[in-house]
């Protein structure tokens, strides 16, 4: 079993800064797990702590049943692929892949055979004699992966695996990576700042900020039920509309209108300051007034291909909405925007936590 259990992990630097500030994570055996967050949020520090490249100040790390908190990087059963792949330029592909086996003093014939086999599995068959400098970006990535999986690690760590590839290649590599992980069944953690990537690849995502975990959940969970406004605005190709409002008798006063509030499991006292949130993708518009909709003036329409991003202003507040390209409104037009109550989320204005209930 190679599940990962992290309890209260802290990484503090000599100057007092905490890169990782008390993190609890459970990764199941064979799971494809993402660490997602903006730069400086601690995701790479956490990954490197799991690898053993950073020492842990407080807390524990278990891989399977073994306490690996202070174990040497080479002895943890962990393999890692770096953002720049870190292939050794003076060794050919076969030697690169076989290097971890060489360190373990695996005999030469066996090493070469394993390297060849692993390379085949990643479609690197004819490239065994090439040097890294002679390979394309995608090929280099696969060699780095091959080197990592050649030793059958318990845990595979990937540091921004797709960021060095150009956009086209990235989509291909995504699918390839997902399939590979599924076939191997190895517990995999990867770090990314790209929420679309995390959403597409991961079984579960940990959203991080300032060294702390904001939420752990499946892509669906973090998308539909974000724990706080940070997660709500970070996840999703279009940031969620988050506007200040006030609760009043089961409804919300926001955008100069009174909109129906979502059904909640807790009571929100009248007058309570809230943050009201609805994703742009769920908002629809109409040229005529509809019940429970907001009147706003369209100030900008961005053509996104099959869809259009509409920016509308209601007083000082701004609302974004994504509609199909053909049915987009005109700039300057007054329109009514309907926000479905079942997609509405409320967050506490002070704590930024989502007020419970909803989906």
């Amino acid at each position, binding site marked *: 079993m190679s599940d990962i259990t992290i309890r209260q992990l802290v990484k503090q630097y000599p100057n007092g800064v905490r890169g990782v500030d008390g993190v609890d994570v459970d990764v199941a055996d064979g799971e494809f797990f993402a660490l997602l967050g903006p730069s400086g949020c601690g995701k790479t520090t956490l990954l490197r702590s799991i690898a053993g*490249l950073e020492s842990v100040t407080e807390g524990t790390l278990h891989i399977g049943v073994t306490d690996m908190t202070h174990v040497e990087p*080479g002895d943890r059963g*962990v393999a890692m692929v*770096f953002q*720049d792949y870190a*292939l050794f330029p003076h060794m050919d592909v076969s030697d690169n892949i076989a290097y971890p086996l060489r*360190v373990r003093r695996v005999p030469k014939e066996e090493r070469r055979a394993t390297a060849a086999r692993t390379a085949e599995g990643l479609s690197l068959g004819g490239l065994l004699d090439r040097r890294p400098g002679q390979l394309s970006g995608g090929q280099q990535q696969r060699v780095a992966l091959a080197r990592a999986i050649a030793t059958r690690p318990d845990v595979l760590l990937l540091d921004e695996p797709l960021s060095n590839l150009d956009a086209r290649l990235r989509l291909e590599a995504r699918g390839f990576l997902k399939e590979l992980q599924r076939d191997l069944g190895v517990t995999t953690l990867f770090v990314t700042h790209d929420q679309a990537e995390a959403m597409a690849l991961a079984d579960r995502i940990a959203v991080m900020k300032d060294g702390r975990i904001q939420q752990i959940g499946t892509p669906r969970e973090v998308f539909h039920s974000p724990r706080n406004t940070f997660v709500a605005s970070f996840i999703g190709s279009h940031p969620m509309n988050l506007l200040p409002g006030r609760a009043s008798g089961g409804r919300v006063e926001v955008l100069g209108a009174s909109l129906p509030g979502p059904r909640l499991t807790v009571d929100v006292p009248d007058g309570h300051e809230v943050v009201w949130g609805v994703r742009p993708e769920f908002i629809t518009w109409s040229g005529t007034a509809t019940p429970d909709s907001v009147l706003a003036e369209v100030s900008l329409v961005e053509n996104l291909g099959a869809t259009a991003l509409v920016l509308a202003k209601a007083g000082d507040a701004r609302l974004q909405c994504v509609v199909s390209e053909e049915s987009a409104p005109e700039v300057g037009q007054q329109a009514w925007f309907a926000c479905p109550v079942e997609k509405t989320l409320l967050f506490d204005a002070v704590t930024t936590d989502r007020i419970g209930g909803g989906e």
Partner: protein
Amino acid sequence: MVSTRSVTGTGVVRARRNRADDVAGLGRARAGVFVAPALLMIGMFLLFPAIWTIYLGMTDFRLTGLAAAHTSFVGLGNFTAAFGDKAFWNALQLTVVFVALSGVIGQSLLGFSLAWSLRRLKGWVRTLVESLALAAWVIPGSVNAFLWIALLDRRDGTLNTLLNTPGTAWLISYPMAMIVIFNIWVGTAFSMQLFSSALSSVSPSQLESAQIAGASEFRQLFDIVLPTIKGHILTNTLMITLWTFNTFTPFLLTAGGPNRKTEIFSVYIYKSAIGSGQLGFGAAISMIMLLINLAIALLYMRVGRKR
């Protein structure tokens, strides 16, 4: 050559390369005038002496005596005299030992060890060690020589006090060892800096990859660092060789003695030519030295280009 792309108003992309752009309107002629004085100086005081030495080496010019007034052409006579001179071969042999021990082995090894040991430190320890080594390099030669004479003094020298070996005349009993160690002391900062910058070119993620694969520091050094900086090691060694071969400071320590036991090539030239006034002969052996320098420098360029 840095390529910068500039987009003009019409959206046309024009590549501007950072090559010579005569923006001040110098023109070739005036540029020539600007360059001429420097080239003249270099030509007169660097190039000309080197070439003239070929001619001089084939005369019997002396500062005093008959040949001073009547210099005659002796062809390769000086060279045959040199090759027949026992002192010549003595000097050459001593120099090979000196360069090998002090330069190639001593300075390189110590310089590299220091660069490798200190590579991750950033605090006062690193600054202290680097400063001490640098100070030895920077202090003028005549002062350095005297500091070592004081250290090695038979009666009051600090070395004798520390090692409890009173009365040992180090410079007389172990002269070669002393100049080798002296030269290592002076020159290590040079190789330490060279290797430090070579080490910083090794990508940290490669070392970490190896670390995760289970490689110890030693393995990382031999499997990754050394192969990566192989070219640097070669060029650094050649540079150190060139510098060590040409250094004159050991003269200030032992003046080639006792009994020519530390008469390395630079000292041999001085004594033969300036010391005893045989300038023709001195020129011939200078020429040999220039040729050796040339060989080392060409080797350096060849290796450097391959990298």
